């Protein structure tokens, strides 16, 4: 009785369902931007314009310099920390492509009032975030559709494909040990109870600093 979804009745067949999307409909939703510039709208904005919009709409969470207020995300800094015990991953220190900044601000920010920014606003904010991260240093720098693809992010080269299969625990296939695998009795090396960052029922422990966050 288990039918294979790959071999279901009608596989490859057309069902004549749905209707053709109008150009305006596609334009309304197709706002994504790719590293090669595909999807970038017309428009432009300067660092200085971006600063004004940022101070008004963004700094309350992300801080005046992208340093973040409380636990809201950090947007700048952290360069050179990726090999540290506590790396600070920001647009400047980590993000491989600028297109992601434009795309994300446009679709999701400001948090609580998404899709409220014009294309020019987003160009200006993207320019300002570059400035906060020292990728551009000139307050008069203007980001636009035409110079967008020329900006490269410092960490772009450090992304590699999925090579988990080559790690020793997966690559060196062997029957796992069943008996007397480790000598001696088990010794506890670390207790969760010592850190005890476990949320208790009805307790708000926002102050306790966790040893690692979930992003």
């Amino acid at each position, binding site marked *: 009785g288990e039918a294979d*979804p*790959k071999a279901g*009745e*009608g*596989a490859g067949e*057309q*069902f004549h*369902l*749905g209707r*053709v*999307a109008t150009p305006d*409909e*596609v334009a309304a*939703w*197709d706002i*994504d931007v790719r*590293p*090669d510039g595909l999807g970038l709208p017309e428009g432009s904005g300067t660092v200085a314009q971006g600063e004004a919009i940022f101070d008004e709409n963004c700094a309350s969470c992300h801080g005046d310099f992208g340093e973040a207020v*409380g636990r809201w*995300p950090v947007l700048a800094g952290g360069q050179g920390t990726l090999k540290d015990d506590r790396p600070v991953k920001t*647009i400047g220190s*980590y993000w491989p*492509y600028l297109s*992601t900044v434009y*795309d*994300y601000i446009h*679709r*999701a920010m400001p*948090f609580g009032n998404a899709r409220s920014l014009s294309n020019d606003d987003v160009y200006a904010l993207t320019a300002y975030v570059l400035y906060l991260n020292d990728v551009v240093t000139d307050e008069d720098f203007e980001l636009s559709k035409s110079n967008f693809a020329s900006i490269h992010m410092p960490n772009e080269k450090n*992304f*590699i494909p*999925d*090579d*988990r299969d080559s*790690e*020793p*625990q*997966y690559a060196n296939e062997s029957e*796992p040990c*069943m*008996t007397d*695998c*480790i000598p001696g*009795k*088990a*010794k*506890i*090396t*670390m*207790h*969760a109870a010592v850190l*005890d*960052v*476990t*949320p208790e029922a009805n307790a708000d422990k926002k102050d306790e*600093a*966790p040893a*690692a966050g*979930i*992003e």
Partner: protein
Amino acid sequence: KAGLAGGAALAASKAQAAGDPVITEVQDWNRYPGDGVDVHPYGMPSQFEADVVRRNVAWLTADPISSINFTPLHSLDGIITPNGLCFERHHAGAAVIDPKEHRLMINGLVDKPLIFTMEDLKRFPRYNRVYFLECAANSGMEWRGAQLNGCQFTHGMLHCVMYTGVLLKDILNEAGVKTSGKWVLAEGADASAMTRSIPLDKAMEDCMVAFGQNGEALRTEQGYPLRLVVPGFEGNMWVKWLRRLEVGDEPWQQREETSKYTDLLPNGKARRFTFAMDVKSVITNPSPQAPITHGKGRTVLTGLAWSGHGTIKRVDVSIDGGRNWHTARIDGPSLSLALHRFYYEFDWDGSDLYLQSRAIDEKGYVQPTKNELRATRGENSIYHNNGIQTWYVNKDGVAENVEVS
């Protein structure tokens, strides 16, 4: 009142009987009727199960509208997660969308861009499949060592339901994918407008566009009225409130595949597009939130195992911190890319237990230790932590999240 007098006499004699009074005395529920069939059109759990709930961890995020709560794995059994207890992860709260106002668009490298209503989608051939969904950040807190005291928190970004939906392949074929198409961007309709790039091969292999879970409509928190199902791949790719699919020739490098869901290695390099969830298991009972309360003797140890590579072939359990292993009994349907339930029954002699489980999947992948993972990946990867979990159980049956050497 002959009848009632007789009853009183009976009750009096029962009170003197030798035995447990809940047996020797007639209880209210054995005498007086309960609620009728018109009282609960949609039923809820018993009042005595009030502790079986999703829980969040306030300090994890700045605000609960971009946050996580966790499935209470320690209170569940079998392989199906009840809809009301499937963990939630959203980036701008759970969007409430009238299905009459929901649309799915297909655009990009297709012969014709299309718009579907929910009613249109339900006219494609439907399929029902049980799949686990695990957030890539599940167990992410544990990279640096034992931290959260309970499998709800260490492993609870996990659920498994039966989806009802249509094949992504069927709706892509309806639009006609151009030969240059290699990736599909999936986009949500919520205020985070979540986007992820899915390889076209995966999209055509087994992805579903689902509108049902466990028999009924998708829940709001799971993307009602429509979500993407990407079997075996990290949960973030299963875009909720799905409203658009764009076919392209390159991945989009969106925020959730660059800033997030990339795995930082000790050399400063970071892996990207680490889609498949690795072979993994966890003992759900006993565990810190579910201690042993019955003392020595017959003890049921149980847990869950799963792999993004197919079925689980075997689960081994150790009660001595990995010195010796016993093959557990896998019970219930063994479905590809679904949770598997395992049991190990033993007679507890009351001594300290160091409980571990180790899953092996159909491709032969063996669940590694946390230290094996740290040896190659360091402690900054955040995602894809499938290391073996240890619970220490003391003589009183109290359990704790520990690491052992």
